[in-house]
């Protein structure tokens, strides 16, 4: 929030048609959405359990925020996708950020830096940032001069991680024949190499060159900030709506975040000509990496135990708990004699004026005669 983003929430149910057009979700993702007819679905219009975080935000922007030039939004949401084996979750959580209304490379840089900073703050430092460029890949596909249907199919395969198709088709074209292996094999921190590629791309279209320039602009900015990245064209996976720089972040081979630029999505969905970029952190793999909060309760936790359930004692317990909470303690109540393991303090309430304060850490006991004294013991 210190970066100026505002939280938004979108509905769990959305219309299927938001996700079906070319340039939104790939057919293989569509084949796994939970879709059904709503109670008023006699028109045949289907609804889905939100399969993606970004497209609903684009819808929200078009419907409600289009008047403001810039929108910087974040969300924590669940997304749903059918998973055949039953071993993975069909409901996954993600935390995402969308920066709408800015086409500048500075925006791409901002979301990349924001993603890495959040991970850093979560205590995850050993990350790998891989950069690709969807616009470059799509321009390359156009260079191959396939029919529209073949091009859509090839893009679908690339998004599934099958890059074989590109080398097969590309080998028939002599100019691209040289460029392709270099581009696809492009790995490592090599902004200089991208520049060399520009020289090699002499024969290609202006379209391809301008995408390449855009990639270089973002990369030089990242270089100027000493950001640690790897270029890996083939890291582009999953989302059809990306149009520019896109990135994947992983740690120990596990993908934990991904994002990119999607300038065509809002126009495609009937909004204005609005550029945008964003990313999502995948909460499920992250949860296992973030240090547990369990120990923290113990530092300031108090268990208030009523010796009996006499009205006077119960009332005193609740009064004491309220005073402790006002002091900032985490307080739980117990009237059934459960164990005190894990709590920093235990207070036995034996009467309105009789309390036993047990310090579990220092293993000390003390009897006191008023709530104020209890607060002094715990607070001191």
């Amino acid at each position: 929030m210190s970066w100026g983003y505002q939280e938004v929430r979108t509905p769990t149910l959305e219309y299927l048609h938001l996700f079906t057009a070319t340039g939104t979700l790939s057919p293989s993702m569509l084949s796994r959405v939970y879709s059904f007819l709503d109670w008023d679905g006699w028109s045949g219009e289907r609804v889905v359990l939100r399969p993606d975080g970004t497209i609903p935000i684009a819808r929200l922007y078009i419907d409600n925020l289009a008047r403001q030039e810039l929108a910087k939004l974040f969300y924590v949401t669940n997304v749903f996708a059918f998973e055949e084996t039953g071993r993975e979750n069909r409901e996954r959580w993600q935390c995402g950020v969308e920066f709408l209304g800015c086409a500048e490379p500075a925006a791409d840089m901002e979301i990349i830096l924001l993603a890495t900073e959040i991970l850093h703050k979560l205590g995850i430092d050993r990350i790998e940032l891989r950069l690709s460029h969807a616009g470059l890949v799509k321009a390359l596909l156009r260079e191959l001069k396939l029919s529209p249907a073949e091009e859509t199919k090839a893009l679908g395969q690339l998004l599934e991680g099958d890059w074989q198709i590109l080398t097969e088709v590309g080998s028939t074209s002599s100019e691209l024949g040289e460029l392709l292996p270099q581009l696809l094999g492009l790995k490592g921190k090599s902004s200089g190499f991208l520049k060399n590629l520009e020289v090699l791309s002499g024969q290609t279209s202006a379209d391809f060159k301008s995408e390449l320039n855009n990639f270089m602009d973002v990369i030089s900015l990242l270089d100027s900030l000493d950001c640690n990245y790897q270029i890996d064209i083939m890291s582009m996976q999953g989302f059809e709506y990306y149009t520019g720089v896109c990135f994947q972040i992983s740690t120990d081979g596990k993908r934990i975040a991904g994002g990119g630029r999607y300038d065509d999505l809002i126009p495609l969905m009937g909004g204005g000509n609005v550029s945008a970029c964003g990313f999502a952190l995948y909460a499920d793999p992250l949860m296992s990496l973030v240090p547990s909060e369990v120990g923290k309760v113990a530092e300031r936790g108090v268990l208030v135990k009523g010796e009996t359930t006499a009205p006077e004692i119960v009332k005193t317990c609740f009064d004491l708990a309220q005073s402790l909470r006002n002091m900032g303690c985490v307080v739980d109540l117990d009237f059934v004699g459960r164990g005190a393991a894990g709590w920093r303090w235990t207070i036995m309430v034996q009467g309105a004026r009789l309390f036993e304060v047990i310090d579990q850490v220092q293993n000390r006991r003390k009897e006191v005669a008023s709530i104020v004294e209890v607060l002094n013991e715990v607070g001191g």
Partner: protein
Amino acid sequence: MKSSMKWGVEFSLLSKYQQGYLRLALPKGRLLAVTANLLAKIGLGFKGYNARARLYRLRSTRFSYLSAKMFQEKDIPVQVAVGNYDLGICGLDWVEELQVGYPATTLVKVMDLGYGRGNLYVAASGQGGISNIDEVLTGRNSWRIVSEYPNLAESFALKQRLRSFRIFPVWGAAEVYPPENADLAVLWARGEERLASYGLTPLKALLATSAFLIANERSLEAKDLNEILACFSPEVIGESKSLLETEAEVIGSSEAALSRQQRADSVWLALPDGHQQPPTVEFLSRVRINVEGYSEEGRNRRPSTDFDWLSVKVVRPQDMPLQVANGNFDLAISGKDWLLDHLYRFPSSPVAELADLGFGRVKIVAVVSKQLPVTNIGELRQLAKVGRLSPLRVASEYINIADKYLRDNRVSPYKLIPTWGASEAFLPEDADLLIENSQTGRTLARHNLRVIDTLFESRACLIGNINNIDSPTKGGKVASLIEILRQAAEGG
């Protein structure tokens, strides 16, 4: 699935030579005659498996442990997938329809039997202004797609990245909807000539189909199917080829395609086929609305009337409420049963009953097998509650009526098995309760069934879209037609 496991376990305890060890689901309808021929030829004949069969349960003439039941073709993949039947024979189209909707289905295609060949087409009317598939792919319309195969139709639309589309599932007669009441139809036909006779142009062949032998995956793993599968050896099937080519052409003579230009202000009326057709013919003749070509024998799905403003199509009564709700027809003669089934699913639908036409009376009843010791729904609820029938398997053509009835009666747990007719065949092996219509009760008695409740009496009714009755473009013609039919119904 739970219940299929239950059956699976019970059957695996049966030894091979006990009755009911292996169960085969056989098709009624289009594939029946050829399938019966083939089975007889390969030594797998079933007594009484013919077009006039009145009982659905069949015994093998050769293998005592093999039994069979006749189903609507569409029900067969589902019955085999859930494990109620080990093997089945049906068209590949229905297998794919199930598998594309439910990819985790445990169904195995064992063998292409080679007969009943045809194609699943995406087709448009020759007069609808669509002549090739690219116009559909690049067009920006919201396409209305009508199909008996909603899963395959949706899969087609998603794969082709249609920008916007709506799928209208129908029980039948998909060919008659384009161009006025749908843009595209996804339908089965033997060949393109057949489509042409419907006035349709094929845009894309989605799937070449023929009859298939299918099996439940777990049956294949756990049971001894050797003797039965050996009968289907490719050589034997090959020898039978000549016999199979004598397939009867079951579809009647060509239907009239668009007979005349429709006026923009036409009032669209849907008339029923099937059981409701004869009484509807009689009713219309009583009100002196002459519908040329709408008689029991005729197959004309586009009969003409004396009024140039009135356009008529003959469709399934099941499909009418949804079609009327979407404005594809202004009025329809359907049944109260199908109207309620629609309204229970879509409470805010604009379809309403405009006149009770009085004919076509049937009772909608809850039915159990006489083997089940219950006489009312309360006793059945108790059985489900104590786990004797858990979950209660409920088969019905009226899936929404059945669902509401069980909810209202607090029956739990239950699961619904949608069927496409001949539901009485499901009791007692494949379902515990039926929600069915019954005219005389004779069919139910013949199948040893007991009625435990009557939900309501259904009659033919005129239905319409309450938002369109006063439509100015139709110049009050809808309202006047309603008035004519209503008066006739009251007078009659």
